[in-house]
């Protein structure tokens, strides 16, 4: 298997804190992989390492076989690696369509402004934000702002899209919508790494789960295996649940 994304013994320190600790993993083209882990496990940091925002302090990151460990974020973005932000990051004073057009123009394939705006409208329709296109981004509801992150990510024309807790703060109907959208994106040929707190949500879309705990990758496998792994149950759901389950 030639991996689309490969991490080799990747670590990231912040001073004395090791936020990501010696993580090795591969993601193949076409997969939908779920990344789970409790608060502070290092999930967002892992995304930041891959996208070059907080470069690895140890180990190697390879994208399509190319070493991108020390490549600046804007170049990584242009090479087809997109991410959404856990804390949404719109350009607040721009309209929704301008936000998405920026993604299409600078990281996507759009040649020139006109083409970028055309592509942006397409992605807005795809993500169900078409009606909000001309609204100023800061006036959107949280659910729509999360959608805007999707649309921006898609407009970057990614090979791999990393979704950092796109469902946090949404109600169950909105989560359903988002998951449907994720499946639609995957069907269009984009490889997806979906980061979630809620295991149930991830299980509905991915056939492979990764679990981080204290920066370490403690599980990597099929949902059945991972959810029955004692270490995962302990780390992720707490000791009490583990004991109950082991009974």
């Amino acid at each position, binding site marked *: 298997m030639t991996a689309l994304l490969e991490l080799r013994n990747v670590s990231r320190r912040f001073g004395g804190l090791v936020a990501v600790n010696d993580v090795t993993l591969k993601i193949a083209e076409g997969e939908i992989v779920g990344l789970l882990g409790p608060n502070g496990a290092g999930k967002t940091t892992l995304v930041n390492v891959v996208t070059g925002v907080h470069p690895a302090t140890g180990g190697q990151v390879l994208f399509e076989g190319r070493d991108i460990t020390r490549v600046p974020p*804007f170049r990584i973005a242009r090479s087809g690696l997109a*991410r959404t932000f856990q804390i949404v990051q*719109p*350009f*607040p004073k721009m309209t929704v369509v301008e936000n998405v057009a920026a993604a299409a*123009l*600078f990281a996507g394939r759009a040649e020139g*402004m006109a083409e970028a705006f055309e592509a942006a409208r397409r992605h807005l329709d795809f993500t169900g934000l078409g009606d909000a296109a001309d609204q100023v981004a800061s006036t959107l509801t949280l659910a729509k702002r999360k959608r805007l992150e999707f649309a921006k990510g898609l407009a970057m024309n990614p090979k791999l899209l990393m979704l950092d807790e796109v469902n946090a703060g949404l109600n169950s109907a909105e989560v359903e919508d988002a998951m449907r959208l994720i499946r639609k994106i995957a069907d269009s040929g984009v490889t997806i790494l979906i980061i979630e707190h809620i295991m149930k949500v991830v299980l509905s879309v991915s056939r492979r789960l990764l679990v981080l705990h204290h920066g370490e990758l403690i599980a990597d496998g099929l949902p059945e295996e991972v959810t029955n792994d004692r270490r995962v149950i302990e780390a992720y759901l707490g000791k009490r649940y583990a004991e109950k389950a082991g009974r």
Partner: protein
Amino acid sequence: MKPWLWLVVFVAACALVPVFGNNYALRLATIMCLYAGLALSWNFIGGMAGYPSFAAAAFFGLGAYVSAVLQSKGLPIGVTWAAAGLGATVFAALIGMAILHLKGHYFAIASLAVVEVLREVVNTAEDLTGGGMGMNIPLPGMPVDVQARLFFFAMLTMTVLLLAVTIVVSRSKLGFGLRCISQNEDAADILGIDTTFYKVAAFCLSAFGVAVIGAIYASWVQYIEPPDVFDILYSVKPLVMVLLGGLGTIFGPVIGAVIYLALEELVWRNFLTVHAAVLGGLIVALVLFLPNGIGAVIRDRTKRAAVRS
């Protein structure tokens, strides 16, 4: 299309001054173009990119001295102006790469330090610049009123050029990228914008404009000294003008420059001894009460009028 129309109106209005106005009016119009040019230049880095630069006085003085030194070596005046612009652009690229990774106050202070450093360098390089004695750069063999017109049209040309560049940039990929950076630099970075390159480009544009205006100024006043051309007011005034007129807009800097000059003249005449304090107070009040600039008020008015009609 509309900005280009306003540009033509602006040029036409200015070009009429030497025809109908007296020497006082011509002098005021020259200063107005100087101010508008400074404000438009500052707008690239301060308004579009959102980086509060105080380096304008450094570029102004650098441009003035490059032009003065080359003129004293016998080069034609136009060549010295171009050299001033190019020199400052290269200088800004180097400085920009060093300080544009700083944010907010840190960047502001670093850019301020550039002014002090350059002033000291010019003070020390006495052989070339005359140091604290200043430099005389006479322009022999040309009647005074012809000179006055020449420098007015030079300033006007530069301002129009900067206005044209502003219109082009604000509609281009560069302007779009700068807007992204000013609103959320981290998001811009992760969206594939080469933020360093974009910021340096804005800084260079800004330096080029200010330096050429400084060079024309030096030729106009024919005597420069470090405290005059490296005056920190050249950093502060454009910032105030842009805030008055509207940050990051196309005509805001020009509107702000006109308002600023009007205030300066009015206050100067009526409060001779305390004019600096009065002017300062007025500016603080205006910026506080009209945070989006007077340009925004005018825009809102016309919009509301349009809705009513």
